[in-house]
């Protein structure tokens, strides 16, 4: 993308603009952009909204950013609240605040420390979350590493290595009162280690069921171990 010779779009305070091709787009304050945007840097501090599809190299959303359309970017970091109504295609996604995507996420590396809501599928090579999340479709990644901070749910989870663990609580007493749980219909992977999970079906090669799980059926082909605090209704070796 040749962006060096393009102009910048800068909105300080209240302002609105049409879309177009820019080098950098910066919104400080309350800015509205109507139309498709293509740029190499997008910076949103304050409250920004873009109605249209966005193609960008690097995007940072520090305040409140909303995109009514699809977004495609290399690096997206969210430190406030971000919303994309369409699909998000991203190589590296870091969320330290809150992100909501109406459609699908297709990415390489996803790191969440906060809250993530996805309407449809979420695909990545690695998905690391220390957070709360809700995924309407399939969570599909080579490595899924989840530390539960609050109730999470995904329709299905599939991948190679799937690790789900409970957050280590400093105040051990409260742990028994507030129990967080991940709910899903089905987990399928080669190596599965889960805690605090409620699932209909767990299928894998190496399956380790940790504490506080409620599972209808486990099917495994290699090894299987289970914590005594978990309930599994049916265990099948294939």
């Amino acid at each position: 993308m040749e962006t060096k010779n393009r102009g910048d779009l800068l909105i300080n305070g209240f302002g609105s603009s049409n879309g177009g091709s820019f080098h950098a787009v910066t919104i400080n304050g309350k800015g509205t952009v109507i139309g498709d945007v293509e740029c190499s840097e997008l910076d949103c501090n304050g409250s920004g909204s873009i109605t249209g599809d966005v193609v960008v190299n690097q995007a940072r959303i520090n305040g409140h950013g909303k995109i009514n359309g699809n977004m495609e970017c290399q690096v997206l970091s969210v430190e406030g609240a971000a919303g994309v109504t369409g699909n998000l295609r991203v190589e590296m996604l870091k969320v330290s605040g809150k992100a909501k995507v109406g459609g699908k996420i297709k990415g390489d590396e996803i790191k969440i420390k906060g809250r993530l809501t996805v309407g449809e599928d979420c695909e990545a090579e690695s998905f690391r979350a220390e957070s709360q999340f809700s995924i309407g479709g399939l969570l599909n990644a080579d490595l899924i590493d989840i530390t539960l901070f609050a109730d999470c749910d995904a329709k299905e989870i599939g991948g190679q290595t799937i690790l789900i663990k409970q957050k280590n609580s400093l105040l051990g007493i409260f742990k028994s009162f507030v129990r967080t749980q991940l709910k899903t219909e089905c987990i399928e992977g080669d190596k599965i280690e889960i805690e605090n999970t409620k699932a209909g079906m767990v299928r894998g090669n190496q399956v380790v069921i940790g504490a506080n799980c409620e599972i209808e059926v486990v099917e495994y082909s290699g090894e299987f171990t289970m914590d005594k605090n978990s309930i599994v209704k049916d265990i099948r070796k294939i």
Partner: protein
Amino acid sequence: MSNKNKDGDFTSVTVLCYIIVMKGVFTMSEELISKKDLLDEAGISYGQLYRWKRKDLIPEEWFIRKSTFTGQETFFPKRKILDRINKIQQMKENLSLDELADMFSPNIADLLLEKDELVKRNIVSTTVLDYYLEIEKGGLTFNFSRLLEVYVLEKLLQSGEINLEEGKMLLQVLVDNKALIKQKKAELVITRKLGVSSCLLLINTENFHFERSTKIVAQLSLMACMEEIKSKLV
């Protein structure tokens, strides 16, 4: 299905059929395989299957959800998926997954090949190529959709299933429906009845049936043709 033109000989009428079927619905005639059995049979792991799905090597439509007594299960069209996995396993030695994905996806946008290149790569013979250019009257540079047209023509003419006149008719159908062919799962069917032939382009079709006296001369999946071309180009 036939009309008389001015010269008094018979030409056939081209029929174009659209039968739109819901995505992901397959008839019972297609044998299905459950995910578990598939992993067993193909000797792959969940990790691989999900990775290939992520890379779009396995189309979304092939994941068919059905409820069984154990809850929801995913099924695949058996023949297609085994075929595809076979191909992936053969080629992943030499190609990266991204390159493979390009091969399986039906849209190669910016491909341009010269006429000589096509002959050299053994995609089309010179005879067929000249015949194609004579009818189509285009330039010597081929983009993917023209490449597909000439390849289909080559395939059917070389196998002797159709004659030159039918080839002309076939080209007309392909040229008129360029845009459709690229995006959808298209199939080409050539039939003959009482010596009159006709050509149908079926988009996203499930099944079709003719009356008994109609003979299906050739049936060709354009998707498969695209893949064949791509594998020749790599």
